[in-house]
């Protein structure tokens, strides 16, 4: 049973396009983190959102935590080839403190 569902699983777009990745769950999380992972490397933390409804911006990336703290989205504006990678969302469970990962979204941005 996948506690965190990411969609889409694969995304191939042209440079300059916008995109949104979704991370959904029926469970409430105390916080949610977004990571980016390149092939053969470990995940690199991009952002942590904690408060329901919170919006954080990191250059062309906008992260939002759902009001009920069950879902999150990542929006990339004017995607560039350097954005290519695996994007992972991970929710921190209130009970037990375990970090639960989604299955990832593989993004390919073509020049």
């Amino acid at each position, binding site marked *: 049973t996948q506690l*965190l569902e990411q969609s889409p699983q694969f995304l191939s777009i042209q440079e300059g396009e916008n995109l949104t990745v979704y991370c959904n769950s029926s469970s409430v999380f*105390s*916080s949610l*983190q977004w*990571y980016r992972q390149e092939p*053969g*490397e*470990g*995940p*690199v*933390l991009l952002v*942590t959102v904690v408060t329901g409804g919170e919006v954080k911006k990191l250059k062309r990336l906008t992260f939002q935590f759902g009001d009920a703290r069950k879902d999150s989205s990542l929006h990339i504006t004017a995607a560039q080839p350097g954005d290519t990678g695996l994007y*992972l969302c*991970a929710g*921190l469970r209130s009970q*037990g*403190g*375990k*970090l639960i*990962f*989604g*299955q*990832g979204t593989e993004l390919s941005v073509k020049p």
Partner: protein
Amino acid sequence: EAEVAQSPRYKITEKSQAVAFWCDPISGHATLYWYRQILGQGPELLVQFQDESVVDDSQLPKDRFSAERLKGVDSTLKIQPAELGDSAMYLCASSRDYPRDEQYFGPGTRLTVT
């Protein structure tokens, strides 16, 4: 900037052989995690240490996997005997404190079992 170190980066082994991975967390980080990531999936927690004590090893296949962090600093994850299904990326992460501090990942060890 401090990083989590892992070695080796790549390991190829035959099934039924023993294999070991090493992790050195960021200095001062009390909590250390070992994850397994199968290609096309997100990481799954195998074991979590707080200092030298195991906090959670509920997903660790204890018949063949073992993990230790004897002095509460670096850690070793061992598989014996390795099986074909163990082929995956093994990631180590550390955090300053548990459970709310952010986790920082190492580069991982890519294991291929033939």
